[in-house]
């Protein structure tokens, strides 16, 4: 990402932040620069399971000074410089980062954002703890000891008050399970649980809304959307629900790791027919491209292999290595993903069948 037009020390801080922040962070370049000399850097922090922090603003008149931070209207009560109680230490740290601001130090912005986020989480946790709802109080008491759990209360003029939890699942080091793992940060799976805030116990409390979420890069290994959540039975609580879910997820993650080598063997099985691939994904084995010929016609054969392989057949696309439109658009076949398939075929049989199906239609 280039930050043209920013002073170099601000660019350095932004680069450092993007490269070192433990989750994916998005920096949107300024969409407007009002005449009053402000250079605005919008930090759309990845919706941290519902937590979206505000805008970070560098003042073009005083670029050496620390940035200002603007929070959304819901967070009027968030005063990181004045937090009391159990976060006394953190409050000091946040203030220190701002007081000791050194514009030449590229790590400062990251430290600021991390501290800000920690403060914000603590603030939200405190707010949630103050909610007058017996069920919620009970739920919090059973799971608040889980490391890494986050919570947030959200309310608005038109919607009822809700409490959102992001519960980290499985104490698994998934990164270690993948040979040649390219992930810089640990990949995690979370369960988002959303409770409406009620004043007293209803006779049958409604089940919370549940959604599985994961860190982005995990998608190369495991498709979170394919997971079927166990049902939430009447009268259940999180302490009962989570162990079942975790056990099931653990099995699925282990299976997804074993599927990597199934995909690897499939790519390897294509080589007697198609030769060595031009390029193949060596870690997750999700794609491979080969070069083939038919007479004097030379073309690429792209294979896209889903995490559901071999249950789901690979998608195939052919691309000419000789034809290009005047606009510079290459000639490609449509992506072929529906064709007769059986996961029980041998790998070499799969290869032959795919080519038989894809070649005439090109």
């Amino acid at each position: 990402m280039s930050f043209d037009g920013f002073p170099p020390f601000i660019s350095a801080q932004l680069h450092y932040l993007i490269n070192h922040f433990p989750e994916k962070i998005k920096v949107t370049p300024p969409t407007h620069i009002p005449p009053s000399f402000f250079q605005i850097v919008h930090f759309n922090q990845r919706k941290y399971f519902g937590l979206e922090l505000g805008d970070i603003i560098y003042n073009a008149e005083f670029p050496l000074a620390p940035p200002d931070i603007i929070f959304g209207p819901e967070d009027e009560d968030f005063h990181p410089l004045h937090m009391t109680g159990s976060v006394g230490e953190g409050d000091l740290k946040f203030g220190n980062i701002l007081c000791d601001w050194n514009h030449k130090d590229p790590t400062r912005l990251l430290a600021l954002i991390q501290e800000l986020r920690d403060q914000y989480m603590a603030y939200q946790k405190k707010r949630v703890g103050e909610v007058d709802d017996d069920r919620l109080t009970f739920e919090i008491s059973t799971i608040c000891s889980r490391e890494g759990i986050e919570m947030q209360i959200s309310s608005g003029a038109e919607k009822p008050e809700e409490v959102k939890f992001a519960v980290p699942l499985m104490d698994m080091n998934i990164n270690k399970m993948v040979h040649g793992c390219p992930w810089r940060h640990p990949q995690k799976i979370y369960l988002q649980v959303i409770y409406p805030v009620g004043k007293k116990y209803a006779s049958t409390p409604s089940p919370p809304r549940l959604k599985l979420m994961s860190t982005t890069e995990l998608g190369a290994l495991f498709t979170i959307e394919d997971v079927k959540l166990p049902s939430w039975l009447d009268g259940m609580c999180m302490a009962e629900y989570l162990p079942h879910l975790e056990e099931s997820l653990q099995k699925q993650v282990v299976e997804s790791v074993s599927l990597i080598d199934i995909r690897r063997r499939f790519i390897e099985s294509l080589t007697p027919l198609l030769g060595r691939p031009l390029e193949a994904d060596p870690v997750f084995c999700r794609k491979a491209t080969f070069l083939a010929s038919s007479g004097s016609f030379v073309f690429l054969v792209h294979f896209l292999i889903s995490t559901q392989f071999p249950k789901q057949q690979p998608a195939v696309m052919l691309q000419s290595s000789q034809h290009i439109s005047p606009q510079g658009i290459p000639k490609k076949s449509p992506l072929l993903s529906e064709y007769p398939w059986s996961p029980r075929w041998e790998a070499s049989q799969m290869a032959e069948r795919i080519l038989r199906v894809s070649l005439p239609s090109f």
Partner: protein
Amino acid sequence: MRMSSSRPKEGNRGKMKMEGVEGDASAGGAVRYTLNPTRISSEDILFCVDVDAESLLEMKTAGVTRLDSIKQAILVFVNSKLSINPDHRFAFATLSKSASWLRKEFSSDVESTIAAVRALSATTVSSSQADLTNLFRLAAHEAKKSRAQNRILRVILIYCRSSIRPHHQWSVNQKLFTLDVMYLHDKPGPDNCPQAVYDALVDALEHVSEYEGYIHESGHGLPRTLFRFMSMLLCHPQQRCPQDDCDIPKPLVKKAAEPANGEDNVHASISR
């Protein structure tokens, strides 16, 4: 993984292939292919195009110069490479007496590739020499930047002269980037020395290349041969086999004998 710097000169590299032989994949290495779980990096690819007057010689297709075909081939290559992995990037330089930048910034944007390719134009006077030293210096400098971004740098040199042997001065310990070569030349005759030029290009490649570099040559002027060889250069350097063992593209369907007039399948126009 670095390949050893001493490679046998027999096989495809030692002498030029018989011309006109196509669609006939050699048996290739008998070793079974394995896809090892070793990370590969996205590439920064620097095209260096020879813009000497010889690049304006016509291909067998009337009205199409070598440079026209090269431009076309680069566009096809870039599109193919991006469809394999949209994270690969490209930059451009030209070679006359020495190398100089045409477009210095590496980018994966197809529009800017089209613009750079359009800007390629030949010199009117033939250079008496071809010094690759500056090219290697530029590449080494860029390679350090690429490495800092977890990328690898590759130079694809497209050379067009039939009698000018390129030369270079380079420390043998510096193998910071991969070098591939595509050599277009006239048919060998008493007034030229494409074999000697080819040998010099092989020397350069083996001298500087970090990973296994590939070199292809063609003297019969068919654009489709150029495209075929360029598509073989799509191979990712970190997943290559020795060139002598290369067995792609594999013929999938056996066809009847090709028409003899060397028609090609190029369908596009390039503005000169």
